């Protein structure tokens, strides 16, 4: 059958990556700053100390600038499922649409409603009502992330559904299986802690700058205290939930794990690549070229992390394509070719069922449905050509994963040191640490982007794991149309990002409003 033009599909992917990538610059800062300013305001309400109010209001101003652009980039993402991925939208909309709708009803309204109380209510509602509003903004943003990540997790690990050949789509049969999927909550926790980490590193970096400039030092130390605590908790929890996420990947998306580790040949007692340089001469998964130029490996750790058994077999790219290895449940893994055949049988059975139903050959319908059901787990493989199609971009996934982990470790160390210096009251005189905090700001943003690259590039070619590949998911819109909107998005978002950055820099240079002028309008 005709597949969509590869060019159109790739441009649709590029457009989604562009808009999601931009959106994820702003969202982590919104959630992270949301928590930090809610903690600051809680201290203000508890102590009545106006300095904490001043600190809260400064970060709230930064939050507002960032929130606006986060909203702007977010609306496109939701509608893009329809505009660019129309087959996907019908094929799984019965399940996927629900979390998006719940996000709007339960989370986004909460955030959007109380944000106006937070910004304009300082003199219109009571102290406690204002504090509650600030917390509700944070809760709304976090709930919003939860439902979006439930939706994303379902794409990576489709559960709680059955295929209905009469409607030609997957239908939800277990709501709680979708919401409480282990992939979903690991992903949610990992993503939310990454937001805490980004918000904390941003506040710490800006505070470092004030200390370097010897301006607003008391405000900077106050901010740094909260940021360092939130940051350390965030990064440590990132390590914990990262382990949980990687464990889920090993069970549900073994090809992604193989790409994350550059593992071509599976083995028992596999070591974890701590640092490595991939061999650019390796052009095929089954050539004899060694995958690494350099690889520093921690023995048996990959097996342990993936299966909680240091001697477990971890399949590599070649094993997953060739099949034949023992799966944890005792069965033998099928090869790509076997799965492709079964996928084609499933697709043909669907076609036969539809034709039989249309022609009124009722007695045949059930037998086609039985064949379809038996082979449905491999449905998406029927659209692929060769085993190579199963392999994501390994260098991009590998380097993204390892760089992300390194940045995470760096920040755990950084926030530990910052807390130590704060405890010893030496932070305001330790210039090297102030410099490090300042110049580390971009690193946390880079790390979260890398995390999403691992999650999304690593799961290619699937939009729905094993069920639907990207080339069958897209809309019938030509590459020319998508290129035009891609360029428009790129220009608008880049322009807005530049505006946001310069506005923020101006506000930061201006610093917090003096205590005596708190009722003055802020620009």
């Amino acid at each position, binding site marked *: 059958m005709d597949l969509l033009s590869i060019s159109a599909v790739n441009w649709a992917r590029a457009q989604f990556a562009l808009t999601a990538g931009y959106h994820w610059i702003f969202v982590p800062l919104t959630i992270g700053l949301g928590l930090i300013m809610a903690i600051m305001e809680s201290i203000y309400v508890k102590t009545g100390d106006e300095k904490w109010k001043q600190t809260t*209001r400064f970060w709230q101003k930064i939050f507002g600038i960032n929130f606006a652009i986060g909203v702007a980039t977010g609306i496109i993402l939701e509608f893009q499922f329809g*505009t660019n991925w129309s*087959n996907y939208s019908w094929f799984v909309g019965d399940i996927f649409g629900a979390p998006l709708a719940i996000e709007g009803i339960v989370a986004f309204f909460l955030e959007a409603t109380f944000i106006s109380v937070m910004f304009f*209510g300082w003199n219109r509602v009571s102290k406690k009502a204002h504090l509650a509003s600030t917390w509700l903004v944070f809760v709304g943003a976090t709930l919003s992330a939860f439902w979006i990540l439930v939706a994303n997790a379902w794409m990576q690990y489709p559960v709680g559904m059955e295929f209905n050949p009469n409607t030609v789509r997957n239908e939800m049969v277990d709501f709680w299986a979708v919401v409480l999927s282990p992939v979903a909550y690991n992903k949610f926790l990992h993503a939310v802690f990454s937001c805490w980490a980004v918000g904390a590193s941003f506040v710490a970096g800006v505070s470092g700058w004030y200390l370097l400039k010897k301006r607003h030092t008391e405000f900077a130390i106050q901010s740094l205290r909260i940021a360092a605590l939130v940051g350390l908790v965030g990064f440590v929890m990132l390590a914990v939930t990262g382990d949980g996420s990687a464990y889920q990947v090993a069970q549900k998306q073994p090809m992604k794990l193989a790409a994350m580790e550059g593992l071509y040949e599976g083995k028992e007692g596999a070591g974890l690549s701590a640092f490595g340089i991939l061999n650019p001469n390796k052009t095929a998964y089954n050539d004899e070229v060694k995958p690494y130029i350099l690889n520093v490996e921690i023995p048996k750790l990959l097996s342990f992390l993936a299966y909680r058994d240091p001697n477990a077999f971890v399949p590599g790219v070649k094993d997953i394509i060739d099949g034949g290895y023992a799966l944890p449940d005792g069965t033998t893994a099928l090869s790509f070719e076997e799965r492709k055949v079964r996928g084609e049988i499933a697709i043909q059975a669907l076609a036969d069922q539809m034709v039989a139903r249309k022609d009124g050959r009722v007695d045949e319908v059930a037998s086609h449905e039985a064949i379809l059901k038996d082979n449905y787990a491999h449905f998406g493989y029927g659209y692929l050509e060769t085993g190579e199609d199963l392999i994501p971009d390994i260098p991009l996934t590998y380097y993204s994963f390892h760089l992300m982990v390194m940045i995470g470790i760096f920040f755990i160390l950084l926030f530990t040191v910052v807390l130590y210096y704060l405890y010893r009251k030496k932070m305001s005189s330790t210039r090297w640490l102030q410099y490090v905090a300042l110049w580390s700001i971009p690193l946390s943003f880079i790390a979260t982007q890398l995390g999403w690259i691992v999650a999304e590039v690593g799961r290619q070619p699937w939009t729905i794991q094993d069920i639907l590949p990207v080339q069958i998911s897209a809309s019938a*819109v030509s590459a020319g149309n998508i290129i035009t909107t891609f360029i428009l998005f790129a220009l608008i978002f880049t322009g807005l990002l530049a*505006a946001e950055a310069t506005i923020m820099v101006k506000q930061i240079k201006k610093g917090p409003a003096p205590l005596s002028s708190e009722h003055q309008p802020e620009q």
Partner: protein
Amino acid sequence: MITYEFLQQYWWFIMSLLGGLLVFLLFVQGGQSMLGSLSRKEDEKKLLINALGRKWEYTFTTLVTFGGAFFASFPLFYSTSFGGAYWAWMILLFCFVLQAVSYEFQSKPGNIFGPRVYRTFLFLNGVLGTFLLGVLVATFFTGSDFTVGKGNIAGLGISGAVISQWQNPLHGLESLANLRNLCLGFAVLFLARTLASLFFVNRLRHEVLENRSRKFVLYNGVPFLLFFLVFLIWTLFDVGYAVDPVTRAVSLEKMKYLHNFMDMPWIMVLFILGVVAVLYGTFKTVFSPQFKKGIWFAGAGTIVTVTMLLLITGYNNTAYYPSSTDLQSSLTLGNSSSSEFTLTAMAVVSLFVPVVIGYIIYAWSALEKKRLGMEELNTDGNAY
């Protein structure tokens, strides 16, 4: 007894209600479209921007929820319309992207492009956002150029694997060539401007702007009424897209939407009451200088009118998103909805809606105890 058909009807009601709320909240866009004409001085403009800037998130959030709820309840519409009328939706979305940053950025130092650019963004969103939405809603009555073949994904189609295929290369922009679509587009634009004028009369503590807003109610209310009546009469007496209750075949039926009103008199009565409320709120504000509550009558009337108008596109065996290319590809509540399980689960979620409305009322009233004047821009602690 909650049947699958009941759930489909329930969800069409929810979508219609969300559509009605969205059109009411477009008063924000209406206000943006007349920032230049309603204000004469910079401080007047600033007051208008701040009055609207405290409400823009409601419209935006309702639009996002409208999209999400459509995806969850009628995914075939989501895939067919968004993936087909690509350019119409994309331009609409671009307008809203530009809006989202414009309030926050327009007066901030270092915004690179200067306040005029951001205010132009607000104007674009105000004009195009309302007009295009009206045009797109009109296609629910006039039809669009698409086909749906669910077997395409299994290789049964002749033009590829995509289930929903748009047949016009303009991808939605062709709807601008239909005069009736344009009528509803202009009607929504002028309605939004009328509602904005009523909102300013109600909210602002600024005599000059209030008096000018009253005149703007008239200037925009009359063209709204004209465009709306042309659209309405044309629609009621033209053909509509009927669904055979037994065979599910779609056919053209003369005066289908008028028949829907006659067959469902409660919808017709509410529709008429809604229109009367809009007219009362509008013209009472024009002719009674002390009357400031026009926005509540016209706003409630808008919600009811639009809700009823959308209900007749889907209820009473009607194809709510008709295909003018292939009648049998038309979307009906029955062939495009989510499964019974999902509609049930989402119906439970919809019970949260009164909670949402409750805290919106709290937040709105907490912030709007006092009317907004220049003084409040200085004392509220935050200003755009």
